[in-house]
């Protein structure tokens, strides 16, 4: 059976060249990068080369890159590290309501530790209004953190404007760019970012390698204390092969970025155009300002996980923000924040394309998706509308 991977926002397959670049660091160059003999020094050099490639991808300096093990770690590090470093100045932080869990849950932790957090609303397309950021700033504000692009609805946020506002107010600005870096051009200078999180597995690199950009001169308290790795800012024996893989993946992403976008974006448009022909299928997120590989919908009257499973049975791999498909068993906060009612949010489904996606894949998808929708609607008690649906909130079962 055909296998069509349309869940690139969850993780990417490893690029074969990336694996090739990594392999010597499992085998010959196994040394600890702190060691002063050959297998260690080779590892050290490889890390520094990877740092250059990672920096180049976002137009930063190599020494501004701190390697971590995941996007989530980068986000935790950014929020806690700047909060602890800046708490003498003030204890107020601004984030949006559509941040990734690794930002939202860290913000909640900081609230318990005595920080005040403002959670900014978004409009129906999922965009933060820079005016709201400006209004939320107080004398106590030390950090603004806004996601660059939502993995769930694809919307690209006006991060440059928000960064500009932060800069004018002397406030540190972090952006979670895990779902954007490698997929669209990201430049920390033009985004006015002081900190930026990104992860290799989002651009054909390995899992286990990610980074936090920290602008030169900004003080950050470590999340992981220990030895002198990463300039004393992130301890732990370096995951050399994964870091090497991140470097290679960054190099490829920089080289192939436009080619990838030119290939993926028309296929994505074709997918969206076809999906919207089916009745009661709605695009979520911004119609234009969205990740070029990203198509996200709510399909009325049916539930997301059921769609995923039937699609998977046809070899199509995708994701959903439905409560059923997330083990958290709560309707996606992102969909709720853009005003999707909870019963509609259950019908969420997200397709994210990659460089290996072909026109044939999309044709096959375009045939299959409407069939699956109608099959599930045949089973649904709501197939003709939401009448009879009780409006009560979902509490009893949770």
């Amino acid at each position: 059976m055909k296998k069509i991977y349309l869940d690139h926002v969850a993780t990417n397959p490893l690029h074969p060249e990336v694996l090739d670049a990594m392999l010597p660091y499992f085998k010959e160059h196994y040394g600890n990068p702190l060691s002063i003999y050959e297998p260690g020094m080779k590892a050290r050099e490889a890390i520094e080369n990877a740092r250059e490639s990672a920096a180049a991808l976002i137009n930063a300096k190599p020494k501004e890159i701190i390697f971590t093990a995941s996007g989530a770690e980068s986000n935790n590090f950014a929020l806690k590290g700047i909060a602890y470093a800046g708490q003498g100045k003030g204890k107020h932080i601004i984030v949006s309501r559509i941040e990734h869990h690794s930002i939202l849950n860290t913000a909640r932790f900081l609230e318990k530790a005595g920080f005040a957090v403002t959670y900014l609303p978004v409009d129906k397309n999922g965009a933060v209004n820079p005016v709201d950021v400006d209004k939320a700033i107080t004398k106590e504000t030390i950090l603004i953190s806004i996601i660059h692009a939502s993995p769930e609805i694809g919307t690209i946020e006006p991060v440059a404007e928000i960064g500009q506002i932060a800069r004018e107010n002397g406030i540190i600005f972090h952006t979670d760019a895990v779902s954007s870096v490698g997929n669209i051009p990201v430049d920390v200078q033009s985004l006015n970012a002081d900190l930026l999180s990104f992860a290799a597995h989002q651009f054909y690199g390995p899992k286990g390698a990610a980074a936090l950009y920290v602008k030169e001169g900004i003080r950050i308290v470590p999340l992981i204390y220990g030895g002198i790795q990463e300039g004393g800012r992130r301890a732990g024996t370096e995951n050399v092969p994964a870091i090497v893989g991140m470097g290679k993946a960054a190099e490829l992403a920089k080289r192939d970025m436009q080619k990838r976008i030119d290939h993926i974006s028309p296929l994505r448009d074709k997918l969206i155009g076809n999906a919207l022909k089916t009745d009661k299928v709605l695009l979520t997120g911004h119609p234009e300002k969205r990740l070029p590989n990203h198509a996200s919908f709510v399909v009325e009257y049916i539930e997301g996980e059921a769609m995923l499973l039937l699609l998977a049975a046809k070899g199509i791999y995708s994701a959903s923000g439905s409560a059923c498909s997330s083990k958290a068993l709560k309707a996606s906060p992102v969909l709720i924040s853009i005003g999707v009612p909870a019963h509609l949010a259950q019908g969420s489904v997200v397709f994210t394309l990659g460089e290996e996606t072909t026109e044939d894949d999309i044709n096959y998808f375009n045939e299959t998706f409407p069939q699956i929708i109608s099959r599930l609607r045949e089973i649904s008690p709501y197939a003709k509308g939401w009448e009879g649906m009780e409006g009560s909130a979902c509490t009893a079962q949770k």
Partner: protein
Amino acid sequence: MYSAKVMDHFTNPRNVGEMPDADGIGTEGNPVCGDVMKIYIKVNDDKITDAKFQTFGCGAAIAVSSMVTEMAKGMTLDEALKITKASLAEALDGLPPQKMHCSNLGADALHKAIEDYRNKQK
């Protein structure tokens, strides 16, 4: 994640559809929570002669609906009232823990349909 049996009942659900001349109808769940089951029964001489369902929900919910209608058919009403979340999960070779409570509404919907039928008899 799901047992082969769940996947079978999910991908080839039995007894799907409305039953315009149902003797009893029971609905359980809420679309806000992600799962709603509507069970229709036909009753003759205290026995369930036919059962159908309509379900909004995840794979587990659809498989449970399919299974509960299969099990109920041919049972007396009192027998059908003994169907439980646990016996349904067992019949499906198990359900993931997080689905046990949210998506396993088949027994409740069936019991409501029986109640509905009995109320109508009064």
